[in-house]
């Protein structure tokens, strides 16, 4: 059984090579799940490198959790293949897949101690008593739960329970760590801590991780790459920066980060929004969706001069909301209402409703999507 452990260690070492289609460490090929009248996952193709942290991001019902459960083997795929390290796992039952899954509900074994929970997967692998004890001690240290080995899960706080779940999934040295919204039952402050902690541990161990979330902040801050899903399909796969700066669909632009969204008519490198003409950096024609991030718009009093390629509009502040780190304004410019965000600098400038202001932003911050007929 030591043989088994050493293979697992070798698998966990990152290779760092680029994923070519069909050649990732984890490769989903046309993966689908159909229920009688409903397609939950529709022909998903995805390649994940060894050691990579990839998030599946989307609204509820987009198929992200079903995809994860198919990877774990808890849901049978209706079509397509799941390949890990060149081995087709599609028909393999979950207990032979060698994956670690962390559940949203933690799903700890209530009748076992913390140490018992963590040891379970090792016992199932038939490891020796001393090996199990060493690895459990190591895993408990990894998630900083020393001294709580003999507690029952019900005696732990939510964050501690989540750590036990993480240790239990990692101690078997899984080929892939699967995380199903693991932070959504924690309060905001703890969630931030756990984000960093999960990411640190994953980097240190070099484990390949798939993280399912509906929270765009989590996806952007934790991931090497993010897969945005909608209606069972992949909308876009890319680095957090790709998704935020270069969204390929209106769905991605509106789901990842906040936006001002308008409908208009694209005329080459400018778009007509009602009576207003704004400049963009991309070529487009015909009916179009236009999005501008609220924090990319600069708000200033008086009439600031527009520099080259800049959009400048004058308007009137209609509403001001103080949100601590941000000031949020609704500004009426012509017949368009813009949401504008400005970081608070402690200097105390807040523009009262009724103030005449100038909005400006650069052409490349106007995201234009030709409307699909």
């Amino acid at each position, binding site marked *: 059984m030591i043989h088994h452990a050493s293979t697992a260690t070798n698998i966990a070492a990152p290779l760092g090579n680029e994923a070519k289609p069909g050649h990732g460490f984890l490769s989903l090929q046309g993966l689908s799940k159909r229920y009688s009248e409903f397609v939950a996952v529709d022909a998903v193709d995805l390649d994940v490198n060894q050691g990579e942290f990839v998030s599946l991001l989307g609204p509820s019902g987009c198929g992200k959790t079903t995809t994860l459960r198919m990877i*774990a*083997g*808890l849901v049978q795929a209706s079509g397509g293949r799941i390949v890990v390290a060149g081995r087709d796992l599609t028909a393999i*039952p*979950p*207990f*032979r*897949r*060698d*994956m*670690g*899954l962390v*559940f949203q*509900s933690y*799903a*700890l*074994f*209530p*009748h076992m101690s913390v140490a018992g929970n963590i040891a*379970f*997967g090792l016992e*199932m*692998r038939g490891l020796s008593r001393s090996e199990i004890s060493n690895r459990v001690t190591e895993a408990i240290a990894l998630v900083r739960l020393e001294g709580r080995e003999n507690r029952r899960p019900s005696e732990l706080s939510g964050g501690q329970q989540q750590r036990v*779940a993480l240790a*239990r*999934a990692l101690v*078997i040295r899984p080929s892939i760590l*699967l995380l199903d919204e693991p932070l959504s039952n924690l309060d905001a402050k703890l969630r931030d801590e756990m984000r960093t902690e999960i990411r640190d541990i994953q980097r240190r161990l070099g484990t390949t991780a798939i993280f399912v979330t509906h929270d765009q902040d989590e996806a952007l801050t934790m991931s090497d790459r993010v897969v945005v899903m909608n209606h069972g399909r992949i909308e876009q796969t890319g680095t957090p920066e790709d998704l935020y700066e270069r969204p390929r669909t209106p769905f991605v632009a509106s789901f990842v980060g906040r936006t001002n969204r308008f409908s208009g008519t694209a005329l080459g490198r400018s778009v007509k929004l009602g009576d207003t003409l704004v400049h963009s950096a991309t070529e487009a024609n015909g009916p179009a969706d236009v999005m501008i991030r609220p924090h990319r718009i600069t708000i200033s009093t008086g009439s600031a001069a527009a520099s080259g390629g800049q959009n400048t509009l004058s308007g009137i502040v209609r509403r001001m909301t103080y949100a601590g780190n941000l000031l949020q304004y609704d500004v009426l410019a012509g017949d368009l209402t813009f949401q504008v965000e400005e970081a608070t600098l402690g200097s105390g400038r807040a523009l009262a409703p009724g103030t005449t202001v100038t909005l400006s932003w650069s052409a490349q911050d106007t995201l234009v999507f030709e409307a699909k007929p």
Partner: protein
Amino acid sequence: MEEKPVSPVLKVLAAFGFLFLLAPVLIVVPLSFSNDVFMSFPPSGYSLRWYIAIGANAKLLDAFLFSVKLASLVTVVNILIAVPASYALIRKAPFGADAIMSLLTAPLLLPTIVLGLALLIVMARAGYLATPQGIFLAHLVVTLPYALRVIATALSTLPIAVEEAAATLGASPLSVFFRITLPMLMPGIVAAAALSFLVSFDEVVLSLFMNGPKVTTLPVELYHHVESRADPLVAAASVLLVVFTLAVVIIVDRSLGLAKTFVK
């Protein structure tokens, strides 16, 4: 945490409620210590003579032993049937699982007299009338619905994610069942066992239909005793039964937490 004070009116009502439920039982207690030859309340004198009489009554003691053996066997077989049956119906949810569950729990809804008559006819045909096998099967029919209901309910409230977690950690379906599902189901199994035992031990109507010279349960023997004689022996036996039943409940509760099982 501040507790709402209970209004005195509610307290009085509750006291009356308990009195109404328990008064007949409470009357039995002084009656059992009677020194009279016939049951009369209040007794003219007190003694332990009827308790001593029980010890000398071989028929009653045999019936008690028979009842305990019967109830124990019924309980064990019930659990052996109800656990796999619930697992199949709840976890595997085959086509028609609801219908099968309704069918298996139907004896709960039937008037016991109808069931007794039906069993009488069937057992007579099969030659099981007045045999231990016959009474065992009859008790199984009326107690299985309780065991099945309790265990199925307990199983359906177990979070399935816990079993899934065990599977992803490398546990085969059999390991998941014995290492995870069964231990988590234990409170439900204990509750089902206690219920099966008490229902079987207490069963009168079916036992009357099925009984014979060698297969007489305690309640039937007591019933026959009351029919033929009116001495306070039955009262003494009743008090002992109450004590015995309470002892079963307390032992189960102390060892495994019955209150937790039923309340949660």
